């Protein structure tokens, strides 16, 4: 009696099952205590090369456009909308999820009291005017009229300290570059039906969790405001962050629904195939072990796991669902489960080890996300194989119904057996046609647009465009950047650029722009303005002359004299002095420090109509001004990334072939094992291309899984040898494997989410092609005495 047979005893079985359960629970604990799922797309990006790519990686989801959420409140009378707009702004003013919430209300209090005297250094008035008697007289005459106008209440408190109304000049200057339509001081759509708000989130645009929090906070605050209105107003949230939340929720929702349908049909399939409820408990064990072991390994090695690693990883370990199926199908009365598994093991191990070796190449890809994927898959596959080899045999029913006794299966095999094995010229012909389609069909081969994979419904995009133009929100694609050694130089250069930018606006090349120097002039400019402020005696004399024929009380303007005197001695205002003011938030997104400690100003653009004009502008300032095309940069990154994946895949294929050859040691057998998966892959690619489907990374990952499945099918068919019962059991196992995988991924292929559909369709097609081709090419004819048994069952590799 072999040592292993001892475990078949029921008592030991129980202990083993418990031990295994403890192990899995331990893994689960490890995973949940250590694992943080990161949404940082940068993990999945290759090292950036061009400066645009570098910027994109640094900025990914951080650019001024991508953090912006556009809000519209509608469906109520405009007084109610205004009330809600104010309420929402007040409710979220101190919410840490947001950097800025604008609804159009004036920004008079943008400068804190302690910085008030700086208005003379920040306002451009002194660039063209002097505070002499004639100018002051003209200004004071205006103020007199103001005091007699309905604006008196608003202006009167300002006049003593700020008779030239620099405070208002600055407030106007700091309004968004293209002020939206206003009702009651709040932004509204031109048709007055929607109150508009402009929100900047603290979380990056592609930080799904941060965006989820922000969107949730907005919705909660709004729901609270609306309360129990009879005709409740609606809140629309638009923008990249809102879309990513929407898409991920929809993906999750569909994946859940599909997952439930999958589970139920899979269990039904297993129940029909084996007519044993115990199988239902045992079949998921390897997959569960694989998933948890993979996650635990990634969290130990990397600390955090990328969301995409999870999605891809669970796709790739789908193959382990087949491992127990082989064991179940080959188990029949009179055969010890341990002997059964020893017989299957060489074939199973060949598949697992060669696939694992192939995945090793991802480790050298230089992309963290792919390295995670590699660790996850290798550990997962190994764990599932170990679970199948050393755990399941102890737990399965040693005397189940022999599937080889099924007459239906017998008749099916006879039919299959009657089919001719395709000859090499035919296979070569099919492959050539597929290649020809790939090379000559006119469709676009690769999908370079990341956004195309998670497409936002057209209705929402149109809506976004509309809100964007109504609010004058920055363009998400084009951006100018100005780099210099320090922030002050950036501010100075930006100020010099303003006339050129104004010219672009005048020529309608762009609708508007926003830059840091609009809020904070450079130290030199501030200093120059300071020099133009008159001293106390001069100003006092000018003021006396200016007020001589006006009705102002004497000494009304003492605060003005005091503020000007203060302004003359102030050190220039720097970005850091503005901390905790509303201005700091605007500056944060427009003035940044690069990774190499230089300063970078972002010039956001609205309504880009003529990119050539922007290109020309950038060309006039080589070395400092750069036009960034974020779409182009992200596409070039995707291309670079894909090249790296393809390159890795080629190495993987060579390694895989090498591993299979090492296991099988016969060119003929290697050909039989690898031909189905190669031709299948070609056929899938050709089919997609012929149908005009542009291929994405998701297709590639799914192709890897399909190839792995194909290898397993071929190895098992090839291994089945010529014993009819064994052939029948192998047919049963592969049929169940193919049916269950086909079912799971076929359902995924019906999803409305392109990512899920890409993975689902690719794998489902792969299952069909690989199954048929493996059956035709890799099986042995059941005519006796032709070949020796193909594998020495006791041999281990």
């Amino acid at each position, binding site marked *: 009696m072999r040592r292993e047979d001892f475990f078949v005893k029921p008592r030991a079985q129980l202990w083993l099952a418990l031990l295994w359960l403890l192990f899995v629970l331990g893994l689960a604990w490890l995973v949940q205590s250590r694992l943080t799922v990161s949404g940082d797309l940068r993990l999945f990006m290759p090292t950036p090369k061009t400066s645009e790519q570098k910027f994109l990686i640094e900025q990914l989801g951080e650019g001024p456009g991508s953090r912006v959420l556009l809000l519209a409140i509608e469906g109520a009378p405009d007084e109610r909308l205004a009330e809600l707009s104010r309420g929402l702004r007040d409710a979220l003013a101190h919410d840490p999820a947001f950097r800025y919430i604008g609804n159009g209300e004036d920004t008079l209090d943008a400068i804190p009291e302690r910085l008030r005297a700086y208005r003379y250094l920040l306002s451009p008035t002194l660039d063209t005017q002097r505070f002499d008697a004639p100018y002051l007289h003209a200004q004071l005459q205006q103020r*007199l009229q103001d*005091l*007699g106008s309905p604006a008196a209440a*608003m202006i009167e408190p300002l006049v003593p300290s700020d008779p030239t109304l620099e405070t208002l000049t600055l407030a106007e200057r700091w309004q968004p570059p293209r002020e939206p339509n206003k009702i*009651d*001081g709040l932004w509204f759509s031109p048709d007055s039906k929607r109150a508009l708000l402009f929100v900047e989130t603290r979380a990056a645009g592609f930080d799904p969790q941060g965006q989820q929090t922000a969107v949730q906070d907005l919705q909660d605050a709004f729901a609270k405001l609306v309360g129990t209105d009879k005709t409740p107003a609606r809140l629309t949230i638009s923008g990249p962050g809102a879309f990513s939340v929407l898409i991920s929720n929809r993906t999750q929702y569909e994946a859940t629904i599909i997952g439930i349908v999958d589970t139920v049909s899979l269990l039904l399939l297993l129940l029909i195939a084996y007519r044993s409820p115990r199988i239902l408990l045992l079949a998921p064990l390897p997959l569960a072990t694989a998933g948890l072991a993979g996650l635990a390994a990634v969290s130990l090695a990397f600390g955090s796991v990328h969301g995409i690693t999870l999605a891809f990883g669970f796709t790739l370990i789908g193959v382990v669902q087949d491992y127990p199926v082989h064991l179940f199908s080959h188990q029949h009365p009179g055969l010890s489960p341990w002997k059964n598994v020893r017989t299957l093991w060489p074939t199973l191990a060949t598949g697992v080890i060669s696939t694992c070796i192939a995945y090793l190449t991802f480790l050298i890809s230089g992309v963290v996300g792919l390295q995670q994927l590699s660790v996850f898959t290798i550990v997962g596959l190994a764990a599932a194989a170990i679970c199948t080899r050393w755990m399941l045999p102890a737990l399965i029913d040693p005397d189940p119904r022999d599937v080889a006794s099924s007459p239906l299966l017998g008749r099916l095999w006879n039919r299959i057996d009657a089919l001719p094995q395709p000859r090499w010229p035919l296979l070569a012909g099919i492959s050539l046609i597929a290649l020809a389609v790939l090379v000559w069909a006119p469709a676009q081969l690769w999908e370079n647009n990341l956004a195309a994979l998670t497409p936002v419904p057209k209705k929402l995009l149109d809506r976004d465009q509309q809100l964007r133009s109504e609010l004058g929100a920055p363009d998400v694609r084009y951006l100018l950047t100005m780099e210099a050694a320090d922030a002050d130089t950036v501010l100075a250069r930006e100020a010099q650029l303003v006339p050129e930018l104004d010219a672009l606006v005048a020529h309608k090349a762009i609708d508007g722009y926003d830059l840091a120097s609009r809020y904070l002039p450079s130290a030199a400019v501030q200093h120059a303005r300071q020099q133009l402020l008159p001293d106390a005696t001069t100003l006092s004399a000018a003021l006396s002359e200016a007020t001589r024929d006006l009705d*102002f009380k004497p000494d*009304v303007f003492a605060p003005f004299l005091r503020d000007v005197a203060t302004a003359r001695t102030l050190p220039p205002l720097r970005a850091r002095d503005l901390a905790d003011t509303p201005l700091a938030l605007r500056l944060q997104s427009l003035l940044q420090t690069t990774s190499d400690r230089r300063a970078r100003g972002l010039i956001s653009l609205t309504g880009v109509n003529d990119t050539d004009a922007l290109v020309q502008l950038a060309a006039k300032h080589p070395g400092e001004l750069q036009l960034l095309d974020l779409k182009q940069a992200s596409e070039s990154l995707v291309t670079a990334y894909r090249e790296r994946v393809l390159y890795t895949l080629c190495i993987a294929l060579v390694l895989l072939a090498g591993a299979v050859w090492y296991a099988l040691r016969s060119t003929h057998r290697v050909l039989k094992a690898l031909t189905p998966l190669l031709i299948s892959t070609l056929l899938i690619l050709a089919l997609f291309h012929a149908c005009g489907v542009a291929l994405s990374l998701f297709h590639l990952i799914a192709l890897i899984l399909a190839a792995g499945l194909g290898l397993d099918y071929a190895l098992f068919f090839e291994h089945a040898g010529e014993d009819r019962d064994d052939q029948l059991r192998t047919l049963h196992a592969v049929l169940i494997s193919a049916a269950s995988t086909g079912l799971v991924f076929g359902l995924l292929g019906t999803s409305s989410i392109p990512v899920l559909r890409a993975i689902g369709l690719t794998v489902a097609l792969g299952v069909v092609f690989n199954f048929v081709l493996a059956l035709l090419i890799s099986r042995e004819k059941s005519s006796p005495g032709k070949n020796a048994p193909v594998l020495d069952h006791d041999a281990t590799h």
Partner: protein
Amino acid sequence: MLAKLARPTPAETPFVELRGSALLKQPQRLQGRLQQPDANTLVREVMTPFHERTTIRAQDVLIERFDAGGNNPHTRKFSLRRAPELEGLLSSFTALLRGDRVLLEKNYSVQMSGDDRIGGASWKLQLTPRDPRLLKRVSGITLRGRGNALECMQLNQPDGQRTLTLLGMTAVAAAKVGDANALGALCEGKPAASAP
């Protein structure tokens, strides 16, 4: 009485306004006309001493100030919300024009005195704002009239400054009056005893 004061639109009346400010040695005297082209719009056009037109529609205030030739208006836009005095005065004024007592009582505690018969003696309506925000800027509004005519509005500020707006026949009578005390007397319904 409110019902009698209600006016159909469009309506127009001349006005003379005396507006005090803590910054000024003496109140400014403004003259012009008030128009109400439709129920939601009020236009206040000052003709002397300068030319300025204010259009108040719903919550938006647009001020256009013209140069000496009546051209090139310099405009300023703001929300009524930023000018609570104006908002207060306006809401009482609109409530009166619409004869809407509920609206008036909602914003003000109202005290009525005098005789409101047509052709009768003068009446007085004293409004005290209920909104504490408004009360900080406006301590009270007094409306005086005779019969169905509103003749004068007086707005008192907590700092002791006041604004008098004479309307209709009173404004016509005040057209040539410059003296602040004389205008005050007119507002209180006394004959325009020309001051020396």
